[in-house]
């Protein structure tokens, strides 16, 4: 705490020097873009998941308003449609580039790094132009951005200038000549645009991704975001091919994306195949463990049933209907033991899935699982989670499952 305070004081002092930015003049010119540039911009916007944060639940695309909970308070995705009053309609290309590269809006205000400009700063000029062309040709939606709810001192924007001095690395994504062009392409997409690290890398006390723990696992909207490296805890190994399948729709070994990863996959399903292949090549290389999948038989089933008889009973009466059919139900893997969530350090992801079910994003095909929030009590869900953990994982029992269920019920119910 003392360290945080000291840091904040230092940041504050530095900020005074660096927090003064000029506004960039309004651009009211008639903008014309080549159709190909707009199309490519659309693909890049999908690869950067702009719509995920900049679209409210059931809201107009890119019109903002989605609440983003952070340890510092709640911020709202902003309106990035070309509406001149409430959106980015008056942004020149230079203003747009400064926003993406320096985290400074047109008026000169420093932006919070929940907007992942620490990644976007590394985008090429070409890709920035395409993104600008795409966004500026969307339908303008007048929608006022809700005010952020941040606690002191995080609501003092000029402090962000100090944050940037500490953390904003504007160097381009380096090329590794020993790797394939596809791998390098994937590295660029992942690090500059798709910002995988924003969720899959842990953050320090000031909300910056910890570079030395790149892809070691992180947080996404109160879900656990698994490691994307050799720390991946599941015995089911990844290959470039299985990762490609997963990122595109569904993989027979790992199943499909749920929670905050589901819209990511829905977006990646729409972009050119070679972009997703490149991402799979880069992330697949860090994710792959040497050797084959660890062959595990389901040998702990009797002990798990003995330790958690209620859980075993409920599993048999409810879950087994789909999950013990040998994968014959569409979009269902052979065994729940293939799902990464069961190997997580905490039970949040399993709880989310049982409480909320799984529903494919609007307009896509995928797994459907009913929500059990209204059917099962906290104690019953805890029994099922404990049983699954004991049956499949060697990671030890989860703690405080029931309390986590109660907490997640409160935070996810409308």
């Amino acid at each position: 705490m003392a360290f945080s305070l000291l840091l904040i004081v230092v940041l504050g002092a530095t900020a005074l020097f660096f927090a003064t930015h000029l506004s960039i003049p309004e651009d009211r010119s008639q903008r014309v873009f080549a159709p190909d540039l707009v199309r490519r911009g659309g693909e890049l916007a999908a690869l950067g998941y702009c719509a995920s944060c900049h679209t409210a639940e059931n809201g107009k695309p890119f019109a903002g308003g989605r609440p983003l909970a952070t340890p510092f308070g709640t911020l709202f995705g902003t309106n990035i449609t070309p509406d001149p009053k409430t959106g980015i309609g008056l942004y020149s290309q230079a203003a747009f580039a400064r926003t993406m590269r320096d985290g400074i809006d047109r008026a000169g205000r420093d932006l919070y790094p929940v907007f992942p400009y620490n990644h976007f700063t590394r985008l090429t000029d070409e890709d920035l132009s395409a993104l600008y062309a795409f966004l500026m040709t969307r339908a303008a939606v007048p929608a006022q951005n809700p005010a952020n709810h941040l606690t002191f001192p995080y609501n003092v924007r000029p402090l962000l200038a100090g944050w940037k001095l500490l953390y904003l690395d504007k160097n381009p994504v380096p090329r590794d000549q020993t790797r394939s062009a596809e791998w390098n392409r994937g590295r660029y997409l992942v690090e500059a645009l798709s910002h995988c690290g924003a969720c899959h890398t842990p953050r320090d006390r000031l909300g910056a991704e910890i570079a030395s723990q790149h892809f070691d696992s992180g947080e996404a909207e109160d879900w656990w975001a698994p490691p994307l490296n050799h720390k991946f805890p599941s015995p089911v190994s990844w290959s470039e091919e299985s990762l490609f399948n997963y990122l595109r729709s569904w993989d027979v070994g790992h199943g499909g994306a749920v929670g905050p990863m589901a819209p990511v996959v829905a977006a990646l399903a729409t972009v050119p195949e070679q972009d997703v292949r490149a991402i799979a090549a880069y992330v697949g290389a860090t994710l792959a463990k040497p050797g084959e999948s660890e062959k595990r038989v389901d040998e702990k089933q009797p002990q798990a049933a003995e330790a958690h008889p209620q859980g075993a009973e409920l599993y048999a009466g409810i879950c087994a209907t789909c999950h013990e059919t040998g994968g014959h139900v569409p979009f269902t893997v052979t065994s729940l033991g293939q799902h990464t969530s069961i190997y997580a350090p905490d039970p949040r992801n399993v709880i989310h899935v049982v409480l909320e079910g799984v529903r494919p994003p609007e307009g896509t095909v995928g797994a459907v699982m009913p929500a059990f929030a209204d059917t099962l009590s906290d104690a019953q869900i805890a029994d099922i989670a404990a049983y699954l953990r004991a049956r499949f994982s060697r990671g030890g029992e989860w703690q405080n499952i029931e309390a986590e269920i109660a907490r997640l019920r409160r935070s996810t119910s409308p």
Partner: protein
Amino acid sequence: MITLNVNGRSRDVDDAPNTPLLYVLRGTLELNGAKFGCGLGQCGACTVVIDGKPVFSCLTPISILQGRKITTLEGLGSEDAPSPLQRAFIEEQAAQCGYCIPGMIMRAHALLTANQSPTDAEIREHMNANLCRCGTHMRILAAINRAAGGMHAAGARAPAKAEEEE
């Protein structure tokens, strides 16, 4: 022996605790309103209302239902005296083959009990879990709207009748 509270009546059943409620309703209690569709909680034909919430009875073992209030289609009204919601389905001719309709009515019943004037978007979102192979969704939506409007106008709480009689 498990005691179930179905449509306001206590019913003792001898079925195994793991037995899905749907089988007990249809097989043991001879309440044939709820239908077996997919058996996987994906179609909604088996929907009943438990403690005010729509639930897939095909995926609900009776072991977890002790002391909870179960309402089935039979609890809303009868052929001679249909509930306002059932009447709205008849008036809109919302059924084609009719197989999904009991589940649709029960899911809608849960919505209208909690929210007497839902918007179209709320109705669509709420009914999302139930499928109709014949494609009568537009009439189903119209029936729910009609029921909501009717109740609203009369200030009645008719769909909640089953619960009130308990």
